[in-house]
């Protein structure tokens, strides 16, 4: 696959301004091949604007973006041959049936043979569970059925990159589950770049996450890294039995300890130690505590955040600026 240094998407200072309002400001992202990349942000953060620029539906005001190493502005058609896209509110020709819609989509990519194209349509209808509604006009479809059709049409061309704008937003919990399962299944064939505001979904399936707020990128990291503190300092939780006063003083005297909070509960001391050097912490912390022979460490571990916490912290910090 021809990519920009192994990255399927590579944006450099991508900017979009609408009538003097900055919808997106200097976005630089690199999406690795075969990853599921979650693109998070509140409404109006610039997620859909970014996606539309990647697809050539709107032009960047400044900056550039490469998909498979090709420029999105000058080689848009070649880019779109390798992309599958599901819009946030997918719209199709209402008079067409689901099968006709898929056939119409397929003919943008393939000229034949007819039987193989029809087989591919059948496969896609089966994948999203629309076989029994395949020949009904779309105008009678529910929101969930349209979304399923959207997923099917986005995959009809075996895309190297699947761009999904809020793919599970209008689905019930079962539908959401199905969509996430399809995404996980497709990981080995394609790269998935998707925007969402459902943090639980991102945490479940994404390898990497970018958080966008008011048109600016506020965080970008592998999901696990983001959940464990994203380099802004790690936090360790410890439960200690015994009088930990001296151990606390020793720890607070270390240069790598940023802060330490202690709570006494049920005869045990619960510490939350924020550090700025993980290696030093993991190397020395337990030794420093266990210098007191009467202390027992009942539990020790790095604190993991949930994505909602991380998201709210990051977006909150931006708001207060």
């Amino acid at each position: 696959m021809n990519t920009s240094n192994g990255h399927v998407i590579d944006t450099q200072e991508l900017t979009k301004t609408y009538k003097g309002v900055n919808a997106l400001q200097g976005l630089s992202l690199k999406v690795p091949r075969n990853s599921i990349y979650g693109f998070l942000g509140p409404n109006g953060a610039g997620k859909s604007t970014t996606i539309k620029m990647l697809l050539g539906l709107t032009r960047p005001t400044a900056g550039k973006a490469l998909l498979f190493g090709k420029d999105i502005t000058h080689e848009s058609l070649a880019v779109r041959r390798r992309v599958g896209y599901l819009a946030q509110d997918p719209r199709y020709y209402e008079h067409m049936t689901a099968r006709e819609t898929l056939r119409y989509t397929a003919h943008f990519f393939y000229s034949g043979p007819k039987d193989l194209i029809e087989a591919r349509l059948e496969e896609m209808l089966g994948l999203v569970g629309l076989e029994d509604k395949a020949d009904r006009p779309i105008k009678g479809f529910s929101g969930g059925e349209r979304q399923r059709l959207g997923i099917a049409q986005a995959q009809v061309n075996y895309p190297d990159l699947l761009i999904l704008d809020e793919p599970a937003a209008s689905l019930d919990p079962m539908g959401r589950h199905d969509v996430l399962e399809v995404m996980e299944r497709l990981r080995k064939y394609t790269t998935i770049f998707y925007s969402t505001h459902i943090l639980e979904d991102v945490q479940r399936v994404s390898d990497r996450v970018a958080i966008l707020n008011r048109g600016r990128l506020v965080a970008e990291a592998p999901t696990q890294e983001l959940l464990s503190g994203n380099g802004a300092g790690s936090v360790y939780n410890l439960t200690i039995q015994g009088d930990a006063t001296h151990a606390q003083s020793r720890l607070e005297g270390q240069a790598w300890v940023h802060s330490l909070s202690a709570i006494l509960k049920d005869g045990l001391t619960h510490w939350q130690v924020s550090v700025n050097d993980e290696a030093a912490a993991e190397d020395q912390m337990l030794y420093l505590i266990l210098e007191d022979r009467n202390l027992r460490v009942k539990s020790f571990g790095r604190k993991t955040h949930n994505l909602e916490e991380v998201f709210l912290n990051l977006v909150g910090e931006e708001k207060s600026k």
Partner: protein
Amino acid sequence: MTTESKSVVNQELILAARKGLVPVRESARLGGFGNMFRKELGQWWGTRTWWVQTLIWVLILNGISTIVALTEARLPGELLVEVAQTFLPMTVGAVAIGTVIAAQGAIVGEKQLGTAAWVMSKPASRAAFILAKILAHALGVWVTAIIIPSIIFVITVRMLVPAPLALIPFLAGMAIAALAQLFYLTLTLMLGTFTNSRGPIAGIGIGFIMTGLLLKGFIPSQVLIVTPWPLTDVAAGLALGTGLPSIWPVPVLATAFWVVVMTSLALWRFGREEF
């Protein structure tokens, strides 16, 4: 079969199927044209649109000219002129109103519904999107409102009017009517690329037609000859071989020029559309 081996088999099947599919080969400039053109034709000929349009135009154009042929008591030659001068101006003027109405939502509707954005997310060029619409709508209007009524007109005249109708000049007159419809079609589609509501499109399009019909006599001839308004007289003059304005090629060439200009404007504006 384990999940692992199932997925391996599935992957192999997918790759095998993918190998057999033949990619579309089209230039980047006209990417997706064939597919979009077929879809546009399908909307004319795969639905009831074509016979509803045909019925309307046969009833209006052939109905009125047949009534004239049946009720006017004149010499055969005069009757032929009377019938042709009823039929031909209508194929320019009345059909033009129909063309504007039929095409007013072709682009705006797709922009409003979001289907244009969906199509443009596929490997389809914006130029191909516009050209497919122009060509498919032109064929639709020409066949349903000009070709079929003209065939019926020729048959009717042969049956009801004792004077002979020269076929080649008549075809030349109909070609002028077809050019006039192409003008109103490109005008309507061009307006659709500039606005997001149907009101201004219908208003400007029909307003332009009515201006020509009602105010033609008040417009300076230097202006008039570079508009499609004299095409009514040109079509009738060519078909009947009488009353043809001496400068008749000027409005014909001017109209063809405007068609090219309006198509270019539509391509330029739609190329800059932000979805």
